[in-house]
Every structure is written in C-alpha cells, then in structure tokens.
C-alpha cells in the first residue's frame, strides 16, 4: 500500500494553474527528489500534499496508516525564525502540537519520543541551548527532529540545504540517508542541488508546471545523458 497516491491533481493559485495533471505514488522507503525551475510548481505540489492548499481537481489519497497531519515537514526557514528566542527542547517538542488532542501539555510518552528523536539527530547536548545561537546545520537538525516527532513514515523537505555550507549540507544528506535506510522513512525533497540529491534518490520527478519526467534515478540519468549528447 502506498503512503501517498496522487491522481491527476491540478492545483490553481490565485487563478493561475501552478501544477497540472500530476500523478505520483510514494511508497514506504522511497527517496523522492522533486526537481524543477523556480515557479515550476514543485513547492505548490508539496503544499498540496501537506493540505495547505486544496487541489482544484484530482485526488490525493493517504494510505498505509499515514494521516495528513502525520507528515514530517521541514519548511524553508524564515528570517524571523533564525533569531527566535526558544530552546532546542521547546522547538523539538512543538512537533507534537498537532497530536495533543485534549491534552494541555505533552504526555510522558511523547516526551520520551522527543528525547529519542533528539538522540537520533545527535542534538541532545544542545537541548537547553537557544535555537538562535546554533549554526545553520544544527538548526536544520533541530527542525528535522521536530519533523520526526510529527511522523513515523514520511518526511517532506523544502530546499533543506539552502544557506548551509557544503560540509553541513553533506552531513544533512548523510542523516537523511540513514533515516531512509535504517528507519524506512520515506523522503520527499524539493531541491535545486541536482547532483548531490541524485546520489541518494530512488525516484526523480521533474516539474515544469506539468510533470516533465517521473521515474527511477537510473532512467533519469539515462535521460540526462541523452539530452546532453543531443545539445
């Protein structure tokens, strides 16, 4: 059973069609990279999966015990966030806000999971530190831990290496690889960094308002080589 099945989804934004007729399937353990120019509709697609925008037509089906509010989302950081006064602990535990139900504060079980995810991301030693004093790579690991609190099965990342130096970016990719292999977390990533992203991807989707290409990484590489030769 697939985690997400999109069938002929069309999304309009302020009367403009941002993504048209998109179909794709994400399964457990997949590593999906979505490529495309600016304004090609890849971020819109991601927002549709999260339920932040409603598709105009088509359907998005969540399966394999995944609910829409149980997707781990790593949004692009805003300037306000980088200087936000909050401790690492506070940020990570906010991953549970959607699952509080009638509770006022986190349950003991949720706190335990929180600590577990922080250990997984190797940020336990930072937990009392202030978020705004961390480096870009550390901040990204904190947000990743928060996203993992919200999900067990699917991570959605929006240009995760923006603003990171090459070392921190490589570290982040290694973490994602580890999550993908060891925890069987499916990963869907919007990226500009074609080469590095392709190293780990199993599936590639190229958006250009409509789906330009969708298939396995090997097929994509063959296509790139073919195109390179013809030009």
């Amino acid at each position, binding site marked *: 059973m697939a985690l997400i099945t999109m069938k002929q989804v069309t999304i309009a934004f302020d009367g403009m069609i941002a993504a048209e007729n998109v179909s794709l399937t994400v399964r457990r353990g997949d590593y999906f990279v979505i490529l495309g120019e600016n304004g090609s509709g890849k971020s819109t697609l991601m927002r549709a999966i*999260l*339920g*932040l925008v409603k598709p105009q037509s088509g359907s998005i089906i969540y399966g394999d015990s995944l609910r*829409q*509010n*149980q*997707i781990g*989302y790593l*949004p692009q950081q805003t300037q*306000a*966030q980088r200087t*936000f*006064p*909050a*401790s690492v602990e*506070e*940020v990570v*535990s*906010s*991953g*549970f*806000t*959607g*699952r*509080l139900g009638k509770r*006022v*504060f*986190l349950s003991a079980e949720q706190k335990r999971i929180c600590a577990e995810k922080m250990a997984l991301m190797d940020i336990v030693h930072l937990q009392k530190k*202030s*978020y*705004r*004093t961390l480096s870009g790579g550390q901040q990204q690991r904190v947000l990743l831990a*928060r*996203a993992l609190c*919200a999900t067990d099965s699917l991570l*959605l990342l929006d240009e995760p290496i923006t603003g990171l130096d090459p070392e921190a970016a490589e570290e982040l990719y290694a973490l994602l690889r580890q999550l993908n292999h060891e925890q069987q977390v499916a990963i869907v990533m919007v990226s500009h960094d074609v080469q590095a992203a392709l190293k780990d991807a199993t599936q590639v989707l190229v958006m250009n308002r409509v789906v330009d290409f969708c298939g396995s990484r090997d097929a994509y590489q063959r296509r790139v080589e073919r195109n390179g030769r013809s030009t």
Partner: protein
Amino acid sequence: MAGALEHLIGQKGNRHTGKWVSVCILLLIFFMLIMQLPHIGGLTLQMRTYFEYGFLRRALIGGCIVALCAALLGVILVLKHYSMIGDGLSHVGFGALTIAVALGTVSVDSLPTLLPEGFRFTIVRVCESISNTPIPFTMALVVLCATVLLSGGRDRRAAGDASIALLSTGALAVGVIVSSTVSGMNIDVTNYMFGSILAMGESDVWVSVVLSLIVLLAFFLFYPRIFAVTFDEAFATSTGVRIGRYNRMIAILTAITVVVGMRIMGTMLISSLMILPALTSMHLFSRFRAVMICSAFISVLCFCAGLMLSCLYALPTGAGIVLVNLFAYLIFWCISNLRK
C-alpha cells in the same frame, strides 16, 4: 553624528567599546539609585497616603492587570512581526470612543422628520446609552477591526502592514474631526491621546480582572499551540493545528487589552506597553517561556514604578510608564552587552 553614536555604542565599533559604555551606564544608574536611597523611605510613606484615594487604587490594580496581559500578548506580537498592530488598534479605539461619546449629542430634532416619531425616540435612547457607557461599543468595533486585520494577514504580510497604517490614520482622522466639530461634547482630547490616571472606573477594574483571567487561562490551556503558531505557521498547519483560530484569539484578546489599557496609557502610548517589555526580556532570555515570564514581571514592575513616579512628581502617567520601560530596556541592553 549618528555614525559616531553607532560607533560608540558598538554596533560598528568593536565589542570592547560597547562593553565600556555599558559598564559606565550601569555604574551611573547604580550610583544614582544609591544617592536616592535616603529619599525612598520618605517617598513610600508619601505613597501610602496617596493610596487612600480610590481612583489611585483602581488605577494600580486595573493597570497592573492590563500590563500583565499586554506583556504576554506583546511577546507573541513582536515575534510574529506584528508590533504595529497594537498601535493601529488603539487609534481605532480612539476614533470609536469619540464617536460613541459624540452620539450623546443626538437629539430627536436633529434626526430626519421622515422617520416615525417613536423610532426617532428609540434611536436617541440607544445613542444616549452608548454615550453613557462607551466602552462596550468601542470594544466591539476594535475587536472587529482586529479580526479583519489578522485574518487577511496570513498570505499577505506586506499588505497587512499597509492596511494597519491605513486603518490607524483613518480612524485617528475621524476621531479628531468628530471631537472638534461636534458641539456640546466635553471631551478632553489630550486625556484620550495621552491617558489619564483618573480613567479607571469601578467597572473598568472588573473588566480588566475578567480579561486577565481569560488571557491567563488561554495561555495556560493553549501554550504549546500558541508556541507552535508563533514559531512556525507553516509547520503548525501541516500538523493539523488550526492557525486561523489561534490568530483570531490573539487578535481579539489584543483588541480588548488595548481598549482597557488605552484609558490609562493613552492612545498614542498603549502599544509600548505591549512591545517594550517583550523587547527588553528578549535581550537577556533566549527561551520562549522565560521571555514570557520575564516580560510579564518587567511590565508589571515598570507599570507600578511609573505610576508612583507620575503621582509623586505630577508627570503624565502613560509617558512616565513608557520612560520607566525604556529605562529597564537600557539596563537589560547593557547587561546583555556585558555577557557577550
């Protein structure tokens, strides 16, 4: 000049200059306080006699409560980059208040004779009751404006900024015109603009008590959600938090706080009661909860100190409180400079 000042303060200069300036300022403040110590005992005695006046007691109790609420809400507004919303809403409050009071001058003869006589009498009676108790009317109008402002602000941040400016100047203009043209209206506009220590009536104190209970309860019950919505709206929505609902809640509470507080602080100065304590405590604390608690304390302390100063030296209340707040800001800024 500005460049030299900046250099001295240490923005562009090296850190050591900033540290030295901070040390000097702190020492200066410390010695000034030491010099004043002998007087403080006498002043407290003097204050005790002052507090036999009912209006002052009411101002102290009501004001402290409003200061507490304003500080808690202010932290969120500052972090969401909505600092100007308090200012905008207070101007709307000024406009609404003048209109409400001016309604008292409506008489049966001034209404068009086209309307049946009984209907005209009802209108006059409604206008009179609004004019006698203007606060509910004002509050309703400000709450309405707040919800409109914040509900449109999610996707259009830049537009939100402009619409606050539009609303606040517009409402101010209406207020000034109404209060200057309507004859038979004995409002002192200065009192509305800059606040008055006499403004807190018995009912205002009760309103502020209820308000503070609601604000404290809301913060207790929804603390994790409020944090999530303030820190990252996109992520909060993706985990299923209805951010619209919490934004609206904050808008309404802000509106009520502004209306209750603007009588003492004045239209022009009430927003500083929200913004300054938050900015001050962000200098020293870097955890969300600590910032919240610290700004609540700072706000209440500065309010009390400002009120006392304004009593003892006959200063305008709102302005005095703002100055005390700025003083606290300066101290915290110095300390944070030293810790770097």
